[in-house]
């Protein structure tokens, strides 16, 4: 019943536009996601590539991805806001912090999965370090790099739901309002919308991942040894929890 009522709410044209409409809140949700992801990429990709290319700092990546998972993002956001006051930036910072570890981990494990002999061969035919990185390592690592970005994006979308609790909007606002007003139809509708956005984003990113990967690179993972646990390494590293929201 609740489900049908929620669907009715979603498909009622009256709820699409306007101040508290679905469309503006969706746009806000995408805005928070875009800003946070952009910031996380600017920081995470260079660090991940540097560590992956040089091979130095592996323990840093391990410690980072492990310990960041433990931080309750919701608590961190509220803590920061008590000092900075309400606003867009605390949210963006917290979401970016959340997204940086999977991005670094993806970039790092991507480069790490590239066969050493391939890199040595590239060096032997006279490629500079920059060329090796740009023309050999990154293309071969692309599936895992994108995998990290995909997992980061999904975490941001899920966690951006809590924006509704700290004076911002986004799709999470329906959930928060619904809970506060004991209007469970509204909360349920919000839940459906957030879940739908996450699933659509995941699907789109999966397609992008398929399209962008160069021909011949299957999944960027070492296939030389048939049943080694190599294959599991990158996925375990990049696969991160869907946090909050």
């Amino acid at each position, binding site marked *: 019943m609740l489900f049908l009522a929620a669907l009715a709410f979603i498909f009622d044209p009256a709820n699409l536009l306007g101040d508290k409409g679905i469309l503006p809140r969706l746009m806000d949700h995408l805005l928070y996601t875009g800003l946070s992801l952009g910031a996380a990429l600017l920081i995470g990709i260079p660090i991940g590539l540097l560590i992956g290319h040089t091979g130095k700092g592996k323990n840093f990546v391990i410690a980072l991805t492990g310990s960041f998972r433990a931080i309750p993002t919701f608590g961190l956001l509220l803590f920061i806001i*008590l000092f900075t006051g309400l606003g867009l930036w605390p949210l963006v910072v917290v979401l970016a912090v959340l997204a940086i570890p999977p991005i670094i981990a993806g970039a790092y494990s991507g480069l790490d999965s590239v066969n050493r002999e391939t890199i040595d061969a590239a060096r032997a035919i006279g490629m500079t370090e920059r060329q090796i990185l740009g023309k050999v390592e990154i293309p071969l690592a692309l599936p895992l790099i994108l995998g990290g970005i995909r997992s980061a994006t999904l975490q941001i979308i899920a966690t951006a739901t809590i924006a509704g609790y700290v004076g911002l909007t986004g799709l999470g606002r329906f959930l928060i309002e619904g809970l506060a007003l004991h209007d469970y139809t509204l909360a349920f509708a919000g839940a459906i919308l957030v879940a739908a956005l*996450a699933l659509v984003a995941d699907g789109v990113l999966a397609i992008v991942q398929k399209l962008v990967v160069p021909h011949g690179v299957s999944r960027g993972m070492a296939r030389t040894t048939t049943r080694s646990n190599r*294959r599991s390494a990158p996925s375990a590293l990049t*696969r991160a929890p869907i946090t909050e929201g």
Partner: protein
Amino acid sequence: MQWLWENRDLVFGLSLEHVRLSAIPIIVSLIASVPLGWLANRFRVTRAIQLTLFGILFTIPSLAFFITLPSVLGTKILNPINVVVALAIYAIAIMVRGAADAFDSVSRDVIQSATAVGFSSVSRFWKVELPLAGPVLLANLRVVSVTTVSLLSVGALVGNGALGYLFINGYQRDFPTEVMIGIAFTLIIAIVFDQILVGIGRILMPWARAAGDSGRSALTVGSAA
């Protein structure tokens, strides 16, 4: 610190609640992962179905789960069962993939040798495949553990967040210390759980450290931590 001392009963009670609510999904996911992992490893079709299904469930934001589950389960929205079930779904989603990887990591040569020396497929599973899959299972269970402990606090928005209560209460009262103590105790529980799992792993799989601690496999285990 003074606040913590004055409210030690509250914080202690919430911490116990946190341990209780997060331990259930972790244990459930471990128990579920063995048959599911075996199934995923045995048949290509079941593997695809499981990975797709749990991949979709894993994508759904937790707050959406917390709110929609009551109408699926027929429970009240404030019932802690909702949060436990939602967290268990995530935990199983991580473990299904992890278990498939874990059983994959068992070398085919070893399995064939076991068959050759006369293991039946059932005893081969329990005595050869499961122990050898153990380290990768453990690595994934550590991810599950840390994720569950940190994710539980979001449940505070639907009245069941254990230590997450301190976040909301501290925020509403404009009292950062309370929020900080909530974060600190969540981290402590996550670390303690992790150490317990590592300890259990050392007792049950004493060979894992010696054999699998070099190079890439160290990354597998460590990264998943």
